[in-house]
């Protein structure tokens, strides 16, 4: 995945700063709570939501099970429609392919439709290194790019910014990238949107190359689909002469008909709209209409390895609606940057450690970045059981085990730093399978309760730093039960 995030500290450390930043927490709280409530209303309007969710899950599972077949079918359809298909095993390969394709056009700038796949591989940075400037045209993505920032949300990458901050970024940076912000720009949404529109229009009309991702690819027709709200994507998809789409291999659906399900569940889950304002579909090339050259780069980058894992593979059903982020209490406090990836929130916590492996500190800590409250599973429109995958990945971290990396089966060793925990878990398991030992422990705790410290040592310090400990009672329940014969000899 992208080199941008290498060397991130573990999640708890990365989150600490965000938790202490009151502006950030306020911005996130406001944004997530607003969209959360709207989504619930939009979903409640649909009488067959449960069936749609189940259908989405099944279509995706079916496609993933026969991915090899559908990918070949897609390649045939795209080629027949006049497109060119390229296969990229990892980020470097994909970046190399796109860079070469742009160079062949002789252009040194491109316009971009908001796309998670190109962020995942760090395409903008790779193009920059080859002297090609990539302009983001999605409003929130533009804010992130101008602010030399990182995205912190799948759908609203600048969710951590408020209007005042956005005004300052526009006023300061727009002139660096093209048309400057108008004099005396205020922070009203209408003025900010207008400034962005004027700034971007120039780019749309000038660009010869467009780069996009896709929400879906239809195997039977070779059609790609982009679902968006602003319409800037459609400009990038139709105006340039060359269009390059970089898409993860899991985004495929077998037939046109399957879109019926996702075009209902995606907008309601993500923006809480009944239907998104712009749905663009394109199939190869058409003479005299739209780009005359079309390239599709199919990106693996850890997806086939993820597919090999029975429990974890359900993460590949994700349609990137971001509903799980918006309901996640951990995301709300920690912010998107703490997840160290373009995929933050609950889906990021299960996707990144699978796509990238659990080797780095941040990736080994992500499966623990959840209280397992289950809110993410409840809202997910393709029913990804995120808590189940989190626990599964925790097991991988603490116990190691067999995984597939780059197509080969390898046996992972348990991650470092869990030895004390492992020993404690073993000891507890022993005590809990020997009721007598448990009882002795309880009695000792009760007898020495006057001497118990108010603060805990070791990992427990984190608890007693912010919460009072419960007092240990004079007598555990089982002793009371035995002494009073279950209360028959009086309650005291």
């Amino acid at each position, binding site marked *: 995945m992208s080199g941008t995030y290498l060397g991130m500290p573990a999640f708890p450390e990365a989150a600490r700063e965000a938790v202490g930043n009151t502006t950030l927490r306020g911005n996130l709280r406001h944004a997530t709570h607003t969209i959360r409530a709207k989504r619930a209303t939009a979903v409640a309007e649909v009488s067959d939501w449960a069936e749609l969710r189940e259908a989405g899950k099944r279509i995706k599972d079916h496609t993933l099970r026969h991915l090899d077949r559908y990918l070949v079918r897609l390649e045939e359809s795209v080629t027949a429609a006049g497109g060119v298909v390229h296969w990229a095993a990892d980020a470097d390969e994909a970046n190399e392919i796109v860079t070469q394709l742009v160079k062949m056009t002789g252009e040194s700038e491109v316009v971009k439709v908001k796309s998670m796949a190109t962020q995942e591989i760090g395409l903008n940075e790779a193009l920059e290194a080859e002297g090609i400037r990539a302009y983001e045209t999605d409003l929130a993505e533009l804010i992130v790019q101008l602010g030399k920032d990182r995205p912190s949300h799948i759908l609203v990458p600048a969710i951590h910014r408020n209007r005042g901050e956005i005004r300052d970024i526009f006023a300061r940076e727009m002139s660096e990238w093209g048309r400057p912000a108008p004099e005396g720009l205020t922070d009203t949404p209408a003025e900010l949107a207008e400034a962005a529109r004027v700034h971007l229009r120039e780019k749309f009309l000038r660009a010869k190359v467009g780069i996009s991702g896709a929400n879906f690819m239809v195997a039977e027709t070779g059609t790609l689909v982009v679902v968006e709200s602003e319409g800037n994507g459609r400009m990038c998809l139709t105006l340039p002469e060359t269009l390059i789409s970089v898409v993860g291999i899991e985004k495929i659906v077998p037939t046109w008909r399957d879109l019926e399900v996702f075009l209902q569940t995606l907008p309601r889950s993500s923006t809480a709209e009944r239907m998104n304002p712009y749905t663009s579909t394109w199939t190869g090339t058409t003479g005299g209409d739209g780009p005359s050259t079309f390239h599709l780069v199919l990106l693996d980058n850890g997806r086939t390895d993820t597919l090999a894992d029975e429990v974890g593979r359900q993460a590949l059903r994700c349609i990137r609606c971001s509903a799980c982020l918006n309901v996640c209490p951990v995301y709300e406090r920690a912010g998107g940057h703490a997840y160290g990836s373009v995929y933050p929130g609950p889906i990021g916590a299960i996707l990144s450690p699978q796509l990238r492996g659990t080797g780095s500190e941040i990736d080994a800590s992500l499966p623990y970045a959840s*209280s397992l409250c289950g809110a993410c599973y409840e809202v997910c429109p393709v029913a990804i059981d995120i808590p189940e995958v989190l626990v599964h990945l925790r097991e991988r971290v603490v116990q190691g085990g067999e995984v597939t990396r780059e197509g080969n089966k390898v046996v992972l060793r348990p991650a470092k730093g869990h030895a004390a925990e492992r020993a404690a878990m073993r000891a507890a398991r022993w005590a809990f399978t020997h009721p007598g030992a448990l009882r002795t422990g309880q009695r000792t705790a009760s007898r020495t309760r006057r001497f118990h410290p108010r603060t805990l040592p070791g990992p427990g310090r984190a608890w007693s730093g912010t919460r009072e400990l419960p007092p240990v009672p004079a007598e555990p329940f089982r002793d009371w039960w035995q002494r009073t014969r279950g209360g028959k000899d009086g309650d005291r």
Partner: protein
Amino acid sequence: MRVALFLTCVNDTLYPDTGRAVVKLLTRLGVDVDFPMAQTCCGQAHYNTGYRHEAEPLARHFSDVFGAYEAIVTPSGSCGAMVRELYPRMGERARAEGRGDTLAATLAPVVPKTYELTEFLVDVLGVTDVGAYYPHKVTYHPTCHGLRGLGLGERPRRLLQAVKGLELAELPGADECCGFGGTFALKNSDVSAAMGADKVRNAESTGAEVLCAADNSCLMHIGGTMARLRTGMRPVHIAEILASTEEEPVV
């Protein structure tokens, strides 16, 4: 009806009053309660932290201890969800690992017989008015595993509404996690504390004297935060409220 009380290791060790309240309440409702002395822990902490293989012997032990009873009642939504939701999954995983059906077969008998307390009262005994008296303003926090794991729904609130003298205050953001999450509270202590503080502030805004829930682990976290923030509110397990009567009030 003879039922087994599965109190859970946390309640047994730290919250014996909850256990006594359950016994008192069920006995008052004509239920013959037994407490199998060999019981220990359902294995949830192990399972959820990633030690599934350490959790398996605990699940087997649970089945050995409780398998013969007609019903198993627990005053903990999360331990109830462990048995009902995750025991079957443990069996499936063992099968997927080529270890056969033994684990699944061992665990199967306890799964449908395990009830969280409020579920047992409403669904099995068919009561919502348990004859309790508790003259306080109370707000109810539905814990995540009770809410989403077991689908307790309105049951606890219906029970509370029927309590004489009790004024039920709606908790804003009730379905948001309090931030406990077992080892999450230790591993991600900053985020956990922030979630706890928000929960406590929401509870305070109701003007209730008591925050009630069906899980002492969450109450330990919320109560510890309340004490540190000096709110003057108290955490109380729902069993203690339901056990309280005019003759024998629980304060």
